[in-house]
């Protein structure tokens, strides 16, 4: 029996949530302390898994744990990570840690800042969400994957509807939840179809994905079921034309939830679409890859065009997420090594980057009470630290060499060029547009003279905010300069996918 590190990672947030709910509501400091301790510990464990995987040059599924749960139906709690999911587990740890830091609730001078309304419940829901996300990334059992998937989606509704932006929170929370539930139900039907088909051909009732991988479903079965399974999940990955819930959700959500939402939840969709859609139905993936590529290509350019025209910072970042997640899907749709590797790195890179964007936007909003770009200005003077952070995030977003964005996007474009060079050319329009809206945003929000009504009302970010910014930037720059800390690892995961695809 090995040390159950993945179970710990998955369940620590849930346990912490329960503990927090047991603390009396007025003892906010204890709540925060529990939240921070749990988040830190989880991050360290996730980093440990990552480093072990990397340093020992592991391949395949590692840290596997199996607990029989409902053996009659072939359901077990089975955890394990491969080169694709280990970075995402780490990413979740990072976003959780930084999310707690920026929602702390007290600034350096002990004035209220961040989440004030019922922080106990807020952190508890956030942590249940985190548990779900960890669970999806680590699950090797299809049933459990769905189980954790719903755990991850459901608290979103409460978090947005209760703590969100008053103007749109009910609409956005409902839109988001409906989209995601409908998507997951459609996928679930597909998963059940796989479960029965595998039972009929092998005689074993099992949701174990490692067994399902070997099930060799007939071609027409795969072709028929790939679409519902893949797109059901891809809704959460923000694929065109099912992306629409995402910007609205980002905007309405409180800062830490936006970070989770764009940083991790959207990866959940792409990851599940990859793991369940492409890896279990590889022939279907080959058959439909043109469609995925087309829609992803549209999302890339489409999201960039809309982001280009937004005046609300959060909407801009929200649509930029649609565009960047489109790149992930684009990488997945290439079904070749270069493209898939790029997609894997892009998931991590975009997660860290967009978490940073939302964190800084939240810091600005908390102080200026507006996110409208035309009403902002001069932030560089007051919060230089946050502005440098945002600029670094911007450079990642633009795919500047030396930052993780380049390491991710460059292989994606090469992979796409290999399959369809015309689409690569069209998709590359987004690179120009991204630079345009990011630079415009930086110029206006940070470097223009500050509007008079804001003068004197803006304070610098807190120490905790700075720690969060530094943490996020470290990963973006680190991977940009030393891609070998992530790329070879992702490639081991990609090799497994290629093996399933028949060595394509």
């Amino acid at each position: 029996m090995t040390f159950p590190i993945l179970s710990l990672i998955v369940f620590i947030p849930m346990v912490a949530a329960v503990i927090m709910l047991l603390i009396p509501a007025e003892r906010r400091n204890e709540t925060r302390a529990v939240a921070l301790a749990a988040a830190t510990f989880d991050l360290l464990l996730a980093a440990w898994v990552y480093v072990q995987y990397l340093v020992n040059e592991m391949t395949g599924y590692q840290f596997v744990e199996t607990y029989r749960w409902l053996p009659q139906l072939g359901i077990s709690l089975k955890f394990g990570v491969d080169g694709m999911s280990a970075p995402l587990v780490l990413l979740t740890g990072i976003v959780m840690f930084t999310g707690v830091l920026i929602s702390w609730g007290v600034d350096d001078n002990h004035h209220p800042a961040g989440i004030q309304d019922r922080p106990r419940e807020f952190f508890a829901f956030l942590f249940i969400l985190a548990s779900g996300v960890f669970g999806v990334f680590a699950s090797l059992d299809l049933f459990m994957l769905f189980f954790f998937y719903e755990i991850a989606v459901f608290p979103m509704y409460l978090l947005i509807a209760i703590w969100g932006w008053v103007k749109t929170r009910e609409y956005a929370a409902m839109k988001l939840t409906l989209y995601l539930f409908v998507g997951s139900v459609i996928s679930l039907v597909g998963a059940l179809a796989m479960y029965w088909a595998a039972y009929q051909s092998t005689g074993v009732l099992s949701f174990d994905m490692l067994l399902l991988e070997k099930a060799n479903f007939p071609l027409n079965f795969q072709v028929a079921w790939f679409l519902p399974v893949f797109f059901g999940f891809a809704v959460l990955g923000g694929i065109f034309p099912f992306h629409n819930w995402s910007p609205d959700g980002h905007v309405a959500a409180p800062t830490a939830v936006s970070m989770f939402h764009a940083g991790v939840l959207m990866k959940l969709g792409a990851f599940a679409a990859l793991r369940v859609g492409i890896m279990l139905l590889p022939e279907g993936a080959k058959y439909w890859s043109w469609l995925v590529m087309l829609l992803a290509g549209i999302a890339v350019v489409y999201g960039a065009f809309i982001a280009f025209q937004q005046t609300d910072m959060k909407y801009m970042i929200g649509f930029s997420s649609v565009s960047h997640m489109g790149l992930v899907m684009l990488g997945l749709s290439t079904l070749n090594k270069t493209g898939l590797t790029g997609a894997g790195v892009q998931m991590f890179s975009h997660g860290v980057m967009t978490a940073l964007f939302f964190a800084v936007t939240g810091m600005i909003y908390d102080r200026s009470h507006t996110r409208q770009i035309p009403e902002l200005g001069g932030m560089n003077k007051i919060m230089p630290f946050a502005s440098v952070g945002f600029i670094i995030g911007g450079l990642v977003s633009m795919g500047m060499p030396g930052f993780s964005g380049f390491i991710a996007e460059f292989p994606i474009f090469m992979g796409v060029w290999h399959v369809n060079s015309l689409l690569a050319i069209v998709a590359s329009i987004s690179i120009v547009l991204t630079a345009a809206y990011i630079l415009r945003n930086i110029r206006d929000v940070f470097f223009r003279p500050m509007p008079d009504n804001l003068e004197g009302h803006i304070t610098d970010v807190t120490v905790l905010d700075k720690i969060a910014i530094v943490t996020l930037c470290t990963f973006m720059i680190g991977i940009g300069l030393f891609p070998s800390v992530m790329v070879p690892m992702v490639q081991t995961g990609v090799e497994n996918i290629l093996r399933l695809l028949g060595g394509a």
Partner: protein
Amino acid sequence: MATETLIWLIPLPPVLAFFLIVLFTNRSKALSHTLGVGAAFLSWLGSMVVFYKAVTTEHFSGFASSIPWLPVGDTWFRIGISIDPLGAAVLFFVAWTIFMIFLYSVGYQNFGQPKGDHDRAGLPPHGATVTDEHGHKHMVLSVEPMYSRFFAFLGLFAFGMYTLVVSDNLLTLFVGWEIMGLCSYLLIGFWYGKPSARAAAIKAFMTTRIGDVFMLLGIAFLYQATGTLTFSEIFTEETLHVLATTPAFFGLSAAGAIAILLFVGTIGKSAQWPLHVWLPDAMEGPTPVSAMIHAATMVSAGVYAVLRMFPLLTAGWHEGAALLPAMNLVAFIGAFTALFSATIAVAQNDIKRVLAYSTISQLGFMIAALGIGAYIAAAFHLITHAFFKGLLFLGSGSVIHGMEHGVLHTGDHHVDPQDMFNMGGLRKKMPITFWTFLIGGFALSGFPIITAGFWSKDEILADAWANGHLTVFITLAVAAFLTAFYTMRQITLTFLGEPRTKEAEHAQETPWTMTVPLVVLAVFAAAYGWVGIPEHFPVLGGILPNWFHEFVGGSLLEHPEALEFSWAPLLTSLSVALGGLGLGYLVYRNVKSPAEDKLQIPALKNKWYFDEIYDFLFVKPSYWFAETFTYQWMDKGVIDGILHFFGKAAAWIGDTLRKYIDAWFINDIVADKLSHQWTVHPAARAVRKVQTGRIQQYMLTSIGVLFVVGVLVYYFFMA
């Protein structure tokens, strides 16, 4: 230390300086510039050693080494360094100009001057009031508020350029390329308090970015076609042959298509038509930045990239053959740009803008030379141009600096210290600046024999003539004439005659940190040409060997042949240079104000309206497309519309179900009417009659029922 190790180290000092300044020495101006200039010096020293080793090695072909960096597909992208003869020659001028620009920046940003009265970060210094020993107050130049940051950015920029030059592959070349793009954004927008600077920075970044995207696609295409991005592996005869014979699109070979995609990157970076619009606006940056971007590094990088890709561009072509489609395109863009921007330069009044357009034009010369296959001539002109254009930019900065001194003296801040019509007669006030500027200007004009520009420009013209590219030859000759003309116009308006304003009268020579770089660069601007005197040139040809041709030619697989001498191009270049200079002097020696200048034609002043045309053709439509079409119509209208339709439909179905099925049919009909009114009630009423309360009746009924049931049971089961 092995030379390879040294080459690895060359780019590092500036980037170290960048980090040290940003992290530690930001508050100390003296420490920051010591770090910056010191780093530039170390890189310069390393470059000189490498250059020395390269030229003293017999049959030098290159130094190279590499390490694995980015795993992609089944292989690793290796990043590495390589210095071949071309690299060594480029490294030489890059090191010199960068070092000089760093040194110059110390003076230009007013080190040692007092802090300004009202200066704040993001705006150029406005001057400080000081009181001398007699109690008189007067204004002097004040130190740049973001002095340290300036050196940090310059360091990063230098790192980008050195990385680009020492790269042995397209990937790190692209990395350096992008770092410079970023730094140019930061440096052009250095005075971000000015709206024009913010706009110019974004324009520069966006325009070059468009080119970069094509370059990235070219890299992807190249990698897909060859599986490598390392120069030495691409430029083998077999690979080039395969690329030259593989068809791509529009009737181009793969080699041609890749070369064109990469070349679009150069169009952006080297500001060639039609992506030239950013460069004149980039003059918003401090002058050392202009020199850095327009002479030493960024724009040169574009030409350098085409030089590097020359074997790809010309794959399947041999000297004397008809030009390939890709080469034709390159030649056309280059020649057209050379002429087109020279016409604009003629009508500019801002001393730096003249130089900006002149730079675009000169880069056009190089690009055109590459298009017609004149590799060595292009490389030669790249280097000489970097020296004399760097000199001219620094000279113009010195002039502006001197004029600013005058402006502070008179206190009239409405006088634009960059407008040449506000100058005049500066030769007496600023002699070192004048003489060095004169050398630079003459080199730019191609003044015969004693300037470097003559030899390099002449070689391009000679090559065009010798290979029969008459259109290119004529276009470039006309452009060269205009070059000489506007250069002399500039020199005449700025330095000759009498001061036209009080400010010009009170202009002052700049400190040594600024004049020393001018002198050093002036030496190169004059003398560098002598290393490349054509073998067959009358009289001089035999005296000095054509070292440049021999050395740089070693970068190609096949050493290019030396040209046969011909009088026609020589006479042409002599006459356009001297004619242009003479005419410029004659026309402008008595012009006092823009009103008297007959060449202030609106089309030229307004740069042929390219900004307006682009705004109409690209900027406005993309805003429309983004807002009206994509966001409002598609996203808000169609997609949300469908969603809301589903929402409404679901609500409607729910309502309908409730109203007609649930409330009416189930409740009303089924439950009320059907069950209650029509069945239960009548039935109850009917049954009620039976409920009489009399035991006897019940008994009777029981017996009757028992009888009937008995009969039925018997009938069905027993019988």
